[in-house]
């Protein structure tokens, strides 16, 4: 089952756990299942206006590569998922 | 602020081998006149205060920062800009060397470097690396780290036609 690496701001939802194994064939399923175990975490991982998107500024790294499919990203049974701030290499804001 | 408008200066000069006559505000820089009045936009503005060399042109054979020359000062003078560096239909050996040595990246400083380097080659055809670096210290480049520019000037120097061998300026 996929392994989710929990970023620091979210570890208070997981009781400090840095990695958790969560079932799911897509990123969305993983997020839903995370929510079951760790209520409140979903709100940090899903855009409030668009349930298919990650919140602005957050990216999901699946097996070392950023997803371009948002929460629709399919996962392998042994996938590794990181939710990380989007790195705009060379980009700036605002 | 309210004063009678000042008449424009009437400037006659030689630009890249051709006689040119134009009107410019008396306070206008030669750089602005070249770019805005004469449509010679190859000369670039980088700082407008004489510290980057992007606007280098020659005036009576000497390199100057055209931002620090007033347009009316050009009256009666002989000017050369980047547009006058190449012979018709060809390239100056320096231009060819810049291309072959990858001596430019963004290219904004390139016209200034070429005009300055050409003046050096004409005065000191065997300048060594230190002299080239010294001569070009008034031209800033932020992309290349300078080395490829210096290599290009050395290459153009080495390849420049020997006197009498060939007409200079044809690559």
């Amino acid at each position, binding site marked *: 089952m996929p392994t989710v690496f929990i970023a620091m701001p979210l570890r208070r939802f997981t009781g400090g756990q840095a990695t958790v194994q969560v079932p799911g064939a897509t990123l969305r399923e993983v997020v839903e299942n995370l929510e079951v175990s760790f209520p409140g975490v979903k709100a940090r991982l899903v855009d409030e206006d668009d349930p298919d998107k990650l919140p602005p500024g957050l990216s999901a790294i699946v097996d070392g590569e950023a997803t371009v499919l948002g929460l629709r990203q399919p996962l392998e049974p042994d996938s590794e998922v990181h939710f990380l701030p989007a790195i705009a290499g*060379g980009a700036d804001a605002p | 602020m309210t004063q009678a408008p000042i008449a424009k200066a009437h400037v006659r000069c030689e630009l890249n081998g051709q006689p040119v006559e134009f009107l410019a505000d008396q306070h206008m820089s030669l750089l602005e006149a070249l770019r805005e009045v004469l449509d010679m936009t190859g000369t670039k503005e980088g700082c407008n205060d004489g510290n980057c060399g992007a606007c280098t042109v020659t005036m009576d054979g000497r390199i100057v920062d055209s931002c620090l020359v007033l347009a009316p000062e050009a009256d009666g003078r002989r000017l050369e800009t980047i547009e006058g560096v190449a012979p018709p239909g060809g390239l100056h050996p320096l231009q060819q060397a810049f291309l072959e040595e990858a001596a430019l990246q963004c290219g904004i400083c*390139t016209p200034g470097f070429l005009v300055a380097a050409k003046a050096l080659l004409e005065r000191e055809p065997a300048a060594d690396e230190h002299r080239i670096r010294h001569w070009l210290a008034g031209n800033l480049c932020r992309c290349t780290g300078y080395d490829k520019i210096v290599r290009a000037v050395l290459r153009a120097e080495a390849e420049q036609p020997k006197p009498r061998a060939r007409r200079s300026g044809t690559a």
Partner: protein
Amino acid sequence: MTSKTEPKRKFRVVGTRPIRHDGWDKVLGRAAYGADVKLPGLVHGAVLRSPHAHARIVKIDTAKAEKAPGVLAVMTAADMPVAASQVLDLGEEVTNATYASDRVMARAKAVYNGHPVAAVAAVDLNTALEALTLIDVVYEVLTPVVTIEQAMAPGAPLVHDDLVGDDIGERVEHTNVAEHIRYEVGDPEAGFAEASTIVELECRLSRAHQGYIEPQTATAFWSQDGKLTVWTSTQASFGQRDALAGVLMRPVSSIKVVPMEIGGGFGGKIGIYLEPLAAVLSRKCGRPVKLVMERRAVFDATGPAPGGIVRVKMGVDDKGLITAATADIRYGAGAYPGAQINPASVCVFASYRIANARVDGYDIVINLSKTSAYRAPGAPQATFATETVVDEICRRIGMDPAEFRLLNASKEGDRRVDGPAFPRIGNVEVVEAIKGSAHYRSKLGPASSPAKKRGRGMASGFWQGIGGKSTVTISVNNDGVVSLIEGSVDIGGTRASIAMQAAEVLGIAAEDVHPSVVDTDSIGHTDLTAGSRTTYATGAAAIKAAEQVVEEMKNRAALAWETDAGNVRFEDGVFSNAVAKGQRLTFKELSGKLGATGGQISTTGVVNLRGSGGGSFAAHLVDVEVDTETGKVEILRYTAAQDAGKAVHPAYVEGQMEGGAVQGIGWALNEEYVVGDDGVMQNASFLDYRMPTTLDVPTIETIIVEVPNERHPFGVRGIGETGIVPPMPAISNALRDALGVRLTELPMKPGRIMAALKAQAAS
């Protein structure tokens, strides 16, 4: 010099050094940059800027300026739509639209010196400049927040009353700390307990400007039909279109951005500055309006790299293995959040395998212009601390700095501090390249006079880069030459590096690909020219488009030969029929037959690459000579090794490495923002900002290392940025070697070196 690490596929075009396609225009002075735009009816504008770093705008009276002869339009923030405080997701950047709008023209408060407060369009530039003096602005001057310490002090004045900070997921109100992030792996405290040697340094970093020679420019024409066209020197034509749409509250499709040639960017020409102002002025006066920034404003009011304070602590065991490391990174973002603390945090320890690490990053707003990306944004400052700490550790434990780096190098499969594991990377290989260099094996030699001392220093660096979306269109002409249309603006030779990748696939010469960079209406979405992505990602799109061309041309050959497409082979630019000897057509010959086999071929390659493929590592070695009586530093010799994956055009790879190293030398020795308590930059000119001249740097010796990138068909890695990361610590390490003192503050200018020598003598 290129160090090969393994046998690779044979390339015909990739790896050669053709003359770049846009070179002729650039050496002849014909290339049109932003300021060179000429349009019918064009008028000129000028911008009035706040002389105060922090001031409430009580009143702006533009009546006199509006009536001045020759003035066509005057604007203030009142002429801009009130952008909702929504989050703008601009693909590569996420920003608050209110801040994005406020940054380009102050509404209620000027929050940095040079903040635009009004703009004028007039018949000529001087008339516009003179009209600025007729605008009365009443300011209520507020106390500026200039330093990190001031910003974080209890009861500090607030740059933004409404800023809500994020402290590792917790909301914080009334703060100047926009964000505090943390990454943690393993147990740092336990790791330090295992260490036999621990070194900790606090480094202070200066703000540093990209220093592109071409100032920002923008020309806009807002037509009566609602269409806005903007000609500008930008690294991100699509990004600018989207940002303009957000700030002007217009549909993206009503805006066309035409990217002009760009006179250097280095990250500083991604965001919008003058574009919305030119647009609004144009709307008001009905004519195209051109704005060119003055050099002083470029320093005052565009985004340099952030300065800040970085503390790094590292422990090693008695074998020299790193047991733990922590970093505390505090960057001054300028007047709006976004100081690149995240890439800084990712990069700070990237060169090392560290099981126990913690990184804290703080994004802090202060009353200076908002910082922007600058070549490997965030990484050089943080890495300065890491690499100087590593050097101190090597000295304490008596280990060769290259050996230490090889022993502790991050490799494929090792995890970065933010979690993901590295794919195949060239970290070890670049250190080995330095170790094997003639420079490394050379003797330092005696100093040139008794007052001078010599030293040598080494440092590593990393930049991750990005992937992203690129579109390339290829059309085959009947003479065998192809035109290649791309959306990636070309700052340093990428027309060539992209065309060469297409040529490689097509089996034709680089010169037979004619690349053009076009506007946002003329090509599919293409992300910015930044993040070391252009040769990598747009190159991948070009390869894809070229492969489609080859496939389609195989079909055409099959048609011509009345054979099955499966029988057509394509090799070295020649199509041949596997089942009919003698049936062969060169690319050029077949191009001439396209009209009769279904018409000319055009293809489009679109990629959206999910990352850079591991990034590019570098190691640099530098020899310095210091005049101990004046503190002046001469760079005697400099060698840079970097992993390019596969160097498409080696001369331009060297050019990126050389340029990055020289920018780093400038940042190391002299470049800085000297800012007074009033928040005003005192050295805002090329004279006093002191970028290196030709006489200040030696030849930069380059070693291109090629560890193929598994995510690119040819193994290409983005290489534009890493080169600026190692120079500053390498020079600090060399100075430590020469003088026995550790310089921890940038720039390491003569006065600072002398002060350090005096402190050393006193102790």
